[in-house]
């Protein structure tokens, strides 16, 4: 757990070791840190207050565990509590009601309703084998209907619209159209509105009462601040929405609103938007969100992405080759391609704890393209035996890959450095220093004497 919060808790609590139980006095400062961290993550102030109170109750009287540091211990308690509040495991709306199942989108202007409607339609069509219909009921924003039509066309989902008509009628007719044309899901896109706009809120109620959608999804910008509570509360009171979608989760916001909205309305976050493209939608994982709010990075997503991209057999093979110092340019190339399969490097780094604070401007994706081009322009023989690559071959590779001889030199240098590093690493592994299954930091580190005894 390499988090900012953990770090600051560590420094606040460093004198606690050996004090037995955590007491009111010695955690007060720590809890102030927690409060500040939550407020900085845009968790609502009242939600923060309640949360800190309940964490305090859980923390007080606990034994200071020997295996972990007190800071880690408190962060673990907070993390678990967060996961629990946000709903434990991932949930997805059940869409097995009587067809057509209705889904109505609602939310503030610019929160991402239209894009989400498109994403949801694509998700249901491709991942859940549904036959959705989109209904364009945002008659206020200029070109909103056109936007939905363009999106629908790009994902082969039909869009029902009546131009700038009455939104309630459009929704009603959309439902009838879906029924008549055998669509099993119908998604209503509605205009953005402020929760204090009485007229437009009334209109949404009328629309809901006209078609009784199975799901009403409240779309919120993940970057929303303290306002989240006012907005969500009113939308919930008026419409009784059934779930929440968080958009723009690919930004660098910590997304405390997810916690606030859940706490205030009791409704789960069901989907998150993770990019501008329509396939960039994901079901919500409370565990990951908890880590994010705490600034811990999203290791689970990273591991999942890696698992999708990496073939286990290949990985084992590669490890063997590295151990035997046989790492060649073929391996380099296949590594590069694996990383590419996992997605944009920047997105990946964002998932790694600690690294998500690095200014990502430094990483140049184009550079990777050049490296790959240079590697691809070598013959398999050259890749297996890089020593073959002399001056004239370098010229040929540079020309073939559209790069320069310097670039090719650079790639070869990079390779040499990697190989060197791997040699050192494998040397260490052969000596058997870190043993598999032992996580340093989980106890061993703090009891060096005991350790020695164990090792006979």
């Amino acid at each position, binding site marked *: 757990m390499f988090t900012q919060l953990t770090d600051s808790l560590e420094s606040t609590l460093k004198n606690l070791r050996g004090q037995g139980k955590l007491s009111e006095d010695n955690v007060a400062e720590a809890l102030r840190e927690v409060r*500040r961290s939550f*407020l*900085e*993550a*845009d968790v*609502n*102030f009242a939600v923060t*207050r309640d949360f800190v109170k309940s964490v305090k109750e859980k923390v007080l009287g606990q034994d200071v565990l020997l295996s972990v540091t007190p800071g880690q211990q408190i962060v673990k308690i907070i993390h678990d509590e967060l996961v629990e509040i946000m709903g434990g495991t991932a949930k997805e709306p059940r869409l097995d009601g009587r067809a057509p199942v209705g889904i109505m989108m609602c939310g*503030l*202007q*610019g*929160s*991402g309703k239209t894009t989400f409607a498109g994403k949801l339609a694509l998700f249901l069509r491709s991942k859940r084998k549904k036959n959705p219909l989109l209904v364009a009921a945002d008659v*206020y*924003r*200029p*070109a*909103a209907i*056109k*936007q*939905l*039509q*363009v*999106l629908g066309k*790009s994902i082969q989902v039909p869009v029902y619209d009546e131009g700038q008509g009455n939104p309630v009628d459009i929704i009603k007719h959309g439902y009838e159209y879906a029924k008549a044309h055998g669509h099993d899901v119908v998604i209503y896109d509605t205009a953005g509105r*402020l*929760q*204090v706009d009485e007229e437009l809120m009334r209109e949404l109620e009328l629309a809901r009462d006209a078609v009784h959608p199975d799901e009403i999804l409240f779309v919120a*910008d993940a*970057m*929303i*601040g*303290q*306002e*989240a509570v*006012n*907005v969500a509360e009113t939308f919930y009171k008026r419409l009784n929405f059934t779930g929440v979608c968080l*958009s*723009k989760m*690919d*930004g*660098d*916001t*910590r997304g*405390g*609103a997810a916690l606030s909205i859940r706490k205030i309305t009791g409704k789960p976050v069901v989907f998150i938007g993770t990019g*501008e493209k329509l396939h960039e939608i994901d079901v919500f994982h409370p565990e990951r969100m908890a880590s994010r709010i705490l600034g811990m990075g999203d290791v689970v997503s990273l591991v999942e992405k890696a698992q999708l991209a990496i073939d286990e057999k290949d990985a084992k093979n590669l490890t063997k080759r590295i151990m035997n110092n046989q790492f060649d340019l073929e391996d380099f190339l296949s590594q590069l391609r694996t990383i590419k399969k996992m997605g944009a490097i*920047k997105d990946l780094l*964002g998932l790694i704890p600690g690294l998500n604070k690095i200014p*990502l*401007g430094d*990483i140049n*994706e184009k550079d990777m393209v050049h490296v790959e081009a240079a590697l691809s322009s070598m013959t398999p023989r050259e890749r297996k035996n890089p020593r073959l690559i002399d001056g004239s071959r370098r010229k040929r590779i540079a020309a073939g890959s559209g790069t320069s001889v310097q670039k090719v030199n650079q790639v070869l240098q990079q390779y040499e450095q990697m190989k060197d590093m791997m040699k050192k690493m494998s040397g260490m592994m052969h000596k058997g220093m870190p043993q598999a299954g032992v996580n340093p930091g989980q106890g061993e580190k703090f009891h060096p004497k005991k350790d020695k005894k164990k090792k006979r």
Partner: protein
Amino acid sequence: MGLFSVIKQGLAKTRAALLGEIKGILGTGKVTDELLEQLEEHLIRADVGVEASFALTDALRENALGKSLSQDQILQILRNEANRLLVDPPPFVLQGKPHVILVIGVNGAGKTTTIGKLAHRFKAEGKKVMVAAGDTFRAAAIEQLEAWAQRSGAEFVRHQEGSDPAAVAYDACEAGKARGCDVILIDTAGRLHNKEHLMEELRKVVRVMRKHDESYPHDILLVIDGNTGQNTINQTKVFHQSFPLSGLVVTKLDGTARGGSVLSIASQLKIPIRWVGMGEKIDQLVPFSKTEYIDGLFENAMEQE
């Protein structure tokens, strides 16, 4: 309609004025740690942000801890500190013919609407205005801007969806000059500030415009959603690193959002807020004034009781 009355109106709608609540806390008269903490919470609740909230209450802590002060005195200290934190924008003058304004921001902040409103404002001042559809990415963004151009009677430049925004900007500069426009407003696609390739695209737009004329764009305005929380600061910082921003536009302040983020940005980055967006109608954009903003927040609260 001045900013003051608009803010007053907005706040009256909910009867939840920031300082109205603060006034409630101030009932005891004595400045204690507990009172400061409550104050802090109320400021944070208005999205003033952790840093700026602490700055405001620290001012009170230094000057008044343990003292008994009247409500007016306490509010005066807060007001002075807010006044110190905020930057009053220098008067807006057209620096060339055409004066070129590039409008940027994250997705859904309200860039296109802001451009429509700005075009309307400049038109009302008798200027010849051109708007350019530089958001070539989002579906139907071009049509959306076209509708605003028609409403405001501005000239309109567009390319195909998916074309290079830098080319659109370049064409707009050329066409605007040729047609004798006074102001050119260039829209861009929304982009999250942590997407390096999209930031690079924007840097290219600026580079290409400068190729046309070194002084272009005269203004780079960052549009910020008034509902956004602490991320406002990240957004502004990162955009500001790539391009020196000449001003901010804060949108959607017609709800219950109090736009406290303004104080955070101002205190950390010293970028002036130029305009404030208050609704979907074409005339609902008002120039920002520091005094009116502070008055709107603080005095309104006093008047409400």
